[in-house]
């Protein structure tokens, strides 16, 4: 088995997968493509195993490489499946569950854990989605020409949502949910393999890898969230960063910029800086300006204002942040950002008030803990 460097390990994993198949298939019936099922299951087990292994990163890369070697027919099939699972006629929840089940090979139990809901809920969601596909006549095909761009956007949105669900871990076991981010990145990698000349697919994969590269630095020993500006950059995964910037270069060569490429470029800007202070803030601001042309959202404007602080000072930045107030008054990060800037401007009382406004606006335990720490000292 060319996948794993360690032949014994590979053999053991295939054996385990076969065992599971023998137990599983009498109940569910033999899947249409037993080879693909076995591979997917073995892959998942290999990932679990690899996590426990000190040199897991190396193996993960090998795995990812091998999972990508599909023949043309299998590739087309996978693409058809991805586009069908992400059809806009299905709700977001259905798209997420179906894609994880049918394309990534997760069990309903694994999906339920990832979304902190019951297996019954996920099972029902998938059943209903499949029923709608049949009843409403959702076709099983790769969208053509005019539809392709729009449908690709839908797939990217599903994958990015999936990634964020796992990455931001709004509750429950942080470790389990980080698997979801890895699964999303795997799916994004598959999409890139199947559509290598789609720059936004490349951009999304790059963005995910750049986020994942910072994983080890995001939480401290006490399990507290560490912001980007405070992270130990020695803990960043330089291999992942290199792989991501290579993807971005490939995307750029295709000459069709887009929001995911730009978000990835911003993340890359941070990744390349030796420290927060040495970040090329002018480049970051320019990238946000370009991003605003695609997605003129107040959140993007907020992020741009944060970058502005480093070039034009907290006063200018605060004015820009305040300009987003009508839209972002219910967003915790708006108030948290204001608090930071006010503190820098020596307006301690207002800073404290802003933090208090921020706290009830987020349920994320790590974010709440961070705000509470700031309120105390």
């Amino acid at each position, binding site marked *: 088995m060319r996948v794993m460097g360690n032949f014994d390990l590979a053999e053991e994993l295939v054996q385990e997968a076969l065992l599971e198949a023998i137990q599983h298939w009498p109940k569910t019936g033999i899947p249409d493509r037993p080879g693909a099922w076995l591979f997917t299951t073995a892959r998942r087990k290999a990932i679990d195993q690899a996590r426990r292994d000190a040199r897991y990163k190396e193996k993960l890369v090998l795995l990812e490489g091998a999972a990508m070697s599909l023949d043309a027919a299998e590739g087309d099939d996978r693409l058809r499946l991805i586009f069908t699972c992400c059809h806009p006629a299905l709700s977001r929840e259905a798209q997420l569950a179906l894609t994880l089940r049918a394309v990534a090979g997760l069990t309903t139990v694994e999906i339920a854990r990832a979304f902190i809901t019951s297996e019954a809920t996920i099972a029902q969601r998938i059943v209903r989605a499949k029923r709608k596909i049949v*009843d409403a*006549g959702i076709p099983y095909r790769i969208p053509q020409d005019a539809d392709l761009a729009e449908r690709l956007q839908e797939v990217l949105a599903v994958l990015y949502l999936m990634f964020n669900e796992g990455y931001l871990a709004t509750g429950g076991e942080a470790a389990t949910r980080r698997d979801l981010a890895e699964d999303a990145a795997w799916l994004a990698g598959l999409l890139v393999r199947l559509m290598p000349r789609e720059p936004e697919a490349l951009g999304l994969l790059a963005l995910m890898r750049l986020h994942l590269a910072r994983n080890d630095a995001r939480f401290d020993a006490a399990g507290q969230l560490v912001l980007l500006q405070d992270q130990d950059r020695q803990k960043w995964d330089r291999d992942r960063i290199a792989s991501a910037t290579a993807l971005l270069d490939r995307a750029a060569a295709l000459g069709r910029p887009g929001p995911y490429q730009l978000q990835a470029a911003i993340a890359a800007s941070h990744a390349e800086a030796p420290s927060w202070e040495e970040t090329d803030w002018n480049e970051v601001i320019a990238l946000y300006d370009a991003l605003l042309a695609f997605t003129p959202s107040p959140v993007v404007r907020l992020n741009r204002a944060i970058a502005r602080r480093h070039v034009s000072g907290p006063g200018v930045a605060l004015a820009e942040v305040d300009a987003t107030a009508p839209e972002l008054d219910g967003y915790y990060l708006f108030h948290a950002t204001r608090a930071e800037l006010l503190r820098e401007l020596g307006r301690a009382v207002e800073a404290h008030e802003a933090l208090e406004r921020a706290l009830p606006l987020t349920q994320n335990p790590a974010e709440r803990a961070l705000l509470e720490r700031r309120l105390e000292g």
Partner: protein
Amino acid sequence: MKYMLMFTATRDGQNQWDAMPEQQRSAEYARINEWFERAGARVVGGYELQPEQTATTVRFNSGKPVVTDGPFLEAKETIAGYAIVDVGDLDEALGLAKTWPTGGTVEVRPVIEREGAPGQG
């Protein structure tokens, strides 16, 4: 597969339509006719409905029918017309719905086809 495309109108839209100069209204109808021409044989039925103030509703109050003025939906949008299309799959039906010229909402729902049922075909 057959789908019903339900075209909606809002009260404001209806008022705008009524207030339109004749020439503009003709132009709008021309675009609608173009849509039907392009759809061609894929359209197997349909009607424009008269506006909502012409509607009468029959409700059932503990099994007893009660007649009232107005459409059944007290909604901002009401059904202004429908078309039945016979196409290969949902994407084709959506393709037609997306080019509907009046800019209102279009609901696309598959019909249930039963052999020999009244009104079929």
